[in-house]
């Protein structure tokens, strides 16, 4: 099966000469439809840069990125903007919500920008807020919401245009442990609903929701592992219950 998203020999550098930083160094990646992939690594390893390249927020110096059969690198500025709007959903660490818009207005915004009829956009936005457990917060401004709620609004917004793929950059980075749990539940639900997800993080909890985990260091992938398929021990053993 052809992967939904693939990257080949993708490279991005900053600076030059002795100050040259290889933020992303010849990375290959395939993501299948419905798969959740987590990319972990210390800060500065290049994982956020990679995510930006995958989502068309930035262009690689060299290499190819293909999303649903389309070569992202061949798209012009307008084509790239259209792809970001319709095919990709972004979730950021700092939520990036519009402070002057209510939750439901934030969520419907991408659909309106994509030219959807306002009533359809509103209906979809309310559905998504319901799905993220925020139906009763639809008319609240972000300032009246907790961090966890804001991130759930941001996830709902990322889903507004039914994206092929959701890219999340450190989605639990600003959250306390209870709010992290809400976001974990939400991502788990998206995964079960067949949404394709790429998460870059250094939070092991959200990384552990993935099917596949990639470790990144100094711009390159150094380790990859499948988390599905069970462990050597049982839950009982983990808890110190001898049997």
């Amino acid at each position, binding site marked *: 099966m052809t992967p939904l998203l693939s990257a080949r020999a993708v490279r991005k550098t900053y600076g030059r000469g002795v100050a040259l930083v290889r933020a992303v160094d010849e990375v290959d990646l395939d993501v299948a439809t419905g798969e959740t992939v987590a990319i972990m690594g210390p800060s500065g390893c290049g994982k956020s840069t990679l995510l930006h390249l995958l989502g068309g927020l930035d262009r690689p110096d060299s290499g190819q990125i293909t999303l649903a059969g389309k070569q992202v690198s061949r798209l012009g500025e307008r084509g790239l903007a259209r792809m970001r709007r319709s095919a990709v959903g972004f979730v950021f660490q700092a939520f990036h919500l519009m402070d002057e818009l209510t939750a439901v207005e934030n969520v419907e915004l991408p659909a309106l920008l994509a030219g959807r009829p306002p009533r359809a956009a509103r209906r979809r936005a309310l559905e998504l807020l319901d799905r993220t457990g925020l139906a009763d917060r639809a008319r609240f401004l972000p300032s009246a919401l907790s961090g966890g709620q804001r991130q759930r609004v941001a996830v709902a917004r990322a889903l507004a245009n039914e994206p092929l793929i959701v890219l999340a950059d450190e989605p639990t980075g600003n959250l306390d442990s209870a709010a992290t749990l809400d976001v974990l539940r939400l991502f788990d639900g998206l995964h079960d609903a067949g949404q394709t997800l790429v998460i870059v993080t250094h939070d092991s909890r959200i990384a552990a929701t993935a099917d596949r985990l990639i470790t990144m260091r100094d711009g390159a992938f150094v380790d990859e592992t499948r988390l599905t398929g069970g462990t050597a021990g049982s839950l009982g053993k*983990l*808890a110190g219950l001898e*049997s």
Partner: protein
Amino acid sequence: MQQEVILAMLAKEPTHGYELRARLRLALGPVGEELNAGQVYVTLTRLEKAGLVASETTPGVSERPDRKVYGLTPEGQQRVAAWLTEVSWPKPDLTEFHLKLTAAFAARLADPIAIIDAQRRELLRRLRDAQRAALTEPDVSDAALLLEGIVLRLQADLRWLEACERTWTTRRNTR
């Protein structure tokens, strides 16, 4: 399972073996799934021999077999009281892994970073399993609290592995 646990679970009131198992299942949730019934009865028998538990057989009604009700003896009650005030906490077994890294590096037998990576993969798989179980457990259940403990411990181990990785990367690069 520790004998004292079974003893303590009888402290509320004397009870049948199957009721005891039900209490354990409730407290453990998915963690207790592989707890086998035989184990509980074997422990009860041992406790009875040790004089910590006494049993009484209630005659069966019609087709039902006789059932044993287990209760604490005064010695059993004393043991439970002592156990509750004991401070015991399982030792985190980090020394072995720590020495594995040290020895591998010193003898140039293996790359400590590769050993750390392998360990991390295993811990993340465990974290995934524990977390999936935790997410499906209702918030108020006793088992959810136990699962949270497992998840937090695994997170702590993973953070320690990060520290190991930083240190050993530096050592390897400056060798």
